[in-house]
């Protein structure tokens, strides 16, 4: 089911917008190129991730996938749908249920020249692989004195879904944060998901790649096979002047929902998607802080020891004199995620909280503009 290919083929024939149709009719010679430009080929995030994996596997025969149900089942979130038919059972390896075991197998394969993408069916399951991720993935390059590298991508869905219960609603970015030797990346849009996954696969470092369980069906435009993002760069989602809102993953959408409301009220927030949870892109971050002098961090992980805790400390330490207000952190409660809808909603940050935080830090009314 090569859905993306079919879509591309048929997509070119989807009707262009009315104004463009007129242009197309008038200039038939340039019709094809204009049609292509006018087309916004939209795919879902899972398809974009699948495209990234497919393209990289085609480009480099040492790239392979390992995980539970990645092969015949196509992946729990379809990120490897049909790939086993194209690449075979060994390159898209269905593993038994033994996370620590197959993560270690991925490490050994990476040390000896392959480039495995290890999927955690849910990032939470990777708690069982913590031994291998911390000790081996993160440390081996160092303890071997640089002799072996572990170019692994460890990816999977995390975050709070819809009433999936405490164990399936975990945010492991904060747990993995301290492991020396790994990079943490969190994707949020179709475009950055594909480009970042390609970059992660090509990287010689072990990358822990956080997808979000509720973002797989988000639609958007993906880049072509040469679009490879920078793993260490944050993304400025919206430029502004009143306050810097640093966020990542699904909270980006929660923030933008709040921003739409705030803009109507006359505020002008700047929104930065961290993308690289470790290391932080201090150039983008400091530039934003110097501009607005106020910071709100909006994250889905727990307050204690979260990504926001690290970022807040770093901002206070290195940009203290650029701040007019202490950094405000909006994080999930230090509470296991309940099953009941209302309690689950109360555990994570909602857009109204973001609006309130901006009111509090910037002022109850929007600043007067010159």
């Amino acid at each position: 089911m090569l859905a993306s290919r079919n879509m591309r083929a048929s997509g070119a024939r989807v009707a262009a917008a009315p104004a463009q149709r007129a242009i197309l009719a008038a200039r038939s010679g340039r019709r094809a190129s204009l049609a292509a430009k006018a087309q916004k080929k939209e795919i879902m995030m899972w398809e974009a991730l699948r495209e990234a994996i497919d393209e990289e596997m085609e480009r480099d025969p040492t790239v392979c996938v390992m995980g539970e149900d990645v092969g015949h089942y196509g992946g729990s979130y379809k990120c490897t749908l049909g790939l086993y038919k194209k690449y075979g059972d060994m390159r898209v390896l269905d593993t038994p249920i033994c996370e620590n075991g197959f993560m270690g197998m991925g490490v050994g394969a990476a040390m000896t020249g392959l480039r495995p993408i290890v999927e955690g069916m849910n990032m939470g399951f990777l708690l069982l692989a913590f031994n291998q991720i911390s000790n081996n993935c993160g440390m081996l390059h160092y303890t071997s004195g640089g002799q072996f590298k572990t170019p692994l991508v460890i990816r999977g869905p995390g975050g709070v879904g819809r009433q999936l219960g405490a164990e399936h609603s975990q945010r492991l970015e904060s747990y993995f944060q301290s492991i020396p030797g790994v990079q943490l990346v969190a994707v949020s849009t179709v475009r950055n998901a594909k480009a970042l996954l390609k970059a992660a696969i090509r990287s010689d470092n072990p990358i822990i790649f956080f997808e979000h369980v509720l973002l797989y069906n988000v639609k958007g435009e993906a880049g072509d096979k040469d679009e490879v993002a920078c793993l260490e760069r944050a993304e400025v989602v919206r430029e502004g002047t009143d306050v810097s809102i640093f966020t990542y993953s699904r909270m980006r959408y929660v923030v933008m929902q709040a921003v739409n409301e705030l803009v109507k009220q006359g505020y002008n927030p700047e929104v930065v998607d961290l993308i690289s949870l470790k290391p932080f892109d201090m150039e983008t971050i400091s530039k934003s802080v110097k501009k607005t002098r106020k910071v709100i961090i909006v994250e889905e992980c727990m307050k204690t020891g979260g990504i926001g805790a690290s970022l807040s400390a770093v901002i206070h330490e290195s940009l203290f004199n650029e701040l007019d207000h202490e950094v405000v952190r909006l994080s999930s409660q230090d509470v296991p995620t309940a099953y009941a809808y209302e309690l689950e909603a109360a555990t994570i940050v909602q857009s109204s909280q973001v609006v309130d935080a901006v009111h509090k830090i910037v002022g109850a009314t929007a600043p007067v503009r010159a």
Partner: protein
Amino acid sequence: MQAMLKQQRSGVRASQPARRAVQIRAVAAPMKAATSSKSPIIAPEVAKDLYYDMVLGREFEEMCAQMYYRGKMFGFVHLYSGQEAVSSGVIRQLRQDDYVVSTYRDHVHALSKGVSAREVMAELFGKKTGCCRGQGGSMHMFSSKANVLGGYAFIGEGIPVGLGAAFQSKYRRDVLGDEKADSVTCSFFGDGTCNVGQFYESLNMAALYKLPHIFVVENNLWAIGMSHLRATSRTAGDEDPHIYKKGEAFGMPGVLVDGMDVLKVHQVAKEAIERARRGEGPTLIEAETYRFRGHSLADPDELRSKEEKAKWLARDPIPQLKKYMLDHGLASEADIKALEDKVAEVVEDCVKFADESPKPERGQLLENVFADPRGFGIAEDGRYRYQLPGFSSGTAIVS
């Protein structure tokens, strides 16, 4: 602890037909003990190589004990003395492109695989000329040249890594089409590890994917102060726990071998290695052996009885092989002395080398954290942190 399978006839089971005990043996015909005929089962060159390697292992480890007590090496140091027959018997017949994975008791595995004594001793002294630049230490011996994939402190965590190397070998053959790709991987670990979950996860995957991986259990009966008999349950009907039987449960041959007899280990390993190279999958080898010293140099070793130690000391693999070589004309006294003298020379030299080697500089601190140093991220001024002054002197702020 010989493999005596008892058939229990309890009240309930007396009425049932007795179960026939199935004894797992090596796949090929069991090795016959050399008789009085003058045809030994091993070539003189091989025997001498095994002898040299065992003596090197022994003398090296004894030197480590001396150096530790003299304050030249620190931390946790786990010596291999007594178990040499397993390392030499298995590893000396591996190729350079075969892989070895070990636990913290890894000095001798590294030596047998071809890592120079100089590099291992320097690593133990924490010098920058060590095989891991002084960054690994006793429990983390790695060599990309000799394909030693570590050296692991948490027992059990090395076995899946070994599986990964075996997977890579099979991948090269089946996916990348390299017909010559038939390297095998041997993972070494002890009786204590055989109760760790990753051992079972690995047995399952190795058999399932038919990986060219050999599980070598060095059963020395003790995991620090925990006797194997107190830690491990028995297969129904057995009086003692038998690790090799777990192979059959996962669909691979499980072989028991006298780990104090290097020739027997050599034979059993040869069969397993050839099986793996032919693509027939993994083998589980349980070698019964013993460590003459404590678990580590910090272990007072008070729980093992004098009688037990004496019994095993009497089965020291080195004099056993020496006697065998002399009896079967594989080496003369002079040959043997020459080998021992060479070892003494090598061991003395490696200590001198390690002693005289420089310590790591501060600049080494940040170098090997990431294979791609961009992993430290982008600093405020827009440069990557590894480009900042102070990175190569190890003083840069990187987080």
